[in-house]
């Protein structure tokens, strides 16, 4: 019996990568800075975003949020209180957002024009494994970890932390209570993603948020097409 080998040499996620590339071009043309926030469940993505949105709004920036969740719309309702447009993406059991879901939800988002936005935040599904493989067309991927999760998170989930552009350590108000070893955590982040910039924040006390907002503002200025 004769068989033949067909060489494909093609990315498994080629479709997603193509969609993500198209989204990235669209975001660039609209001058909107897009960030993809990824962490374990409960790290504090929504709390961190609530403050970020409030502060950006106070500065007069135009912001919107896409929030991925397995089933509920709790996060969307929390975020909507900050007064910015929020859209919930229920993934119905899928453990990550992909570029198709992002594109589709942007297309059906009534009253939202990308060109009118300065920032679009995407809160990914709480999961440290799956979102790392799916490019959403974001400019900045933010990997977050809380002081309550243990300093070795970056070593246990190197794929995600290695694919991140920025790291945020959350809940630093609890650092002492958790005997959080800051040097160890920073060292582990550096080991997995040499040179990564790290923000240390608390949604309870607001610590570190000023520096984060300055960073956002400077990055948004960089999205302007010349």
């Amino acid at each position: 019996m004769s068989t033949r080998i067909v060489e494909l040499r093609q990315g498994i996620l080629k479709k997603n990568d193509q969609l993500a590339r198209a989204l990235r071009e669209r975001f660039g043309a609209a001058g909107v800075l897009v960030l993809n926030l990824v962490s374990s469940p409960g790290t504090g993505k929504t709390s961190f975003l609530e403050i970020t949105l409030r502060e950006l709004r106070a500065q007069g920036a135009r912001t919107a949020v896409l929030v991925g969740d397995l089933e509920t719309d709790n996060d969307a309702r929390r975020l909507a209180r900050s007064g910015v447009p929020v859209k919930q993406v229920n993934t119905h059991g899928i453990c990550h957002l992909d570029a198709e879901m992002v594109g589709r939800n942007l297309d059906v988002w009534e009253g939202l024009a990308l060109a009118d936005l300065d920032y679009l935040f995407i809160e990914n599904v709480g999961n440290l494994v799956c979102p790392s493989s799916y490019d959403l067309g974001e400019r900045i991927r933010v990997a977050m970890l809380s002081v309550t999760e243990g300093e070795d998170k970056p070593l246990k989930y190197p794929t995600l932390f290695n694919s991140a552009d920025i790291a945020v350590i959350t809940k630093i108000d609890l650092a002492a209570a958790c005997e959080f070893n800051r040097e160890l955590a920073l060292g582990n982040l550096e080991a997995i993603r040499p040179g990564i910039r790290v923000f240390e924040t608390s949604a309870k006390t607001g610590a570190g948020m000023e520096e984060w907002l300055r960073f956002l503002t400077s990055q948004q200025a960089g999205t302007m097409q010349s």
Partner: protein
Amino acid sequence: MHELSMAASIVEAVTESVAAYPGARVRQVRLRVGVLSAVVEDSLRFCWEIVTEGSALAGSELVVTVLPVVVHCASCNALSEVEYFGGLRCPRCGEPAGDVRQGRELEIESIEIEEAGEMEDAVASQTHRAGSRFPGGIEERV
């Protein structure tokens, strides 16, 4: 869960490629998967049968080549394989080396197919083989 989406993406991509060979069945799918790609081989195998059911890939074998992480070190200008959990450091000089040159792959390398004519009629397959079935952009070797 994640491997289920991956497996579905593989089936979709392979199905598109075998469309150029009407009636062909896929015998084997070869993947190249980097250590940093976050794909667990066992989980992929676990759902393979279910995901391929009813498609041209039904009953096919999955062959996975796992690629270690290779980094480029800016200090000594060398490419080296690194240990996954130890962090990304150059094993030669010990400096941090985040320039990953291999290890993120998530690729379908090739597929082995059995064409329809050959299965139904071994003699007829000789003539079928002569026909041109080269789809655009796909290299082929027998």
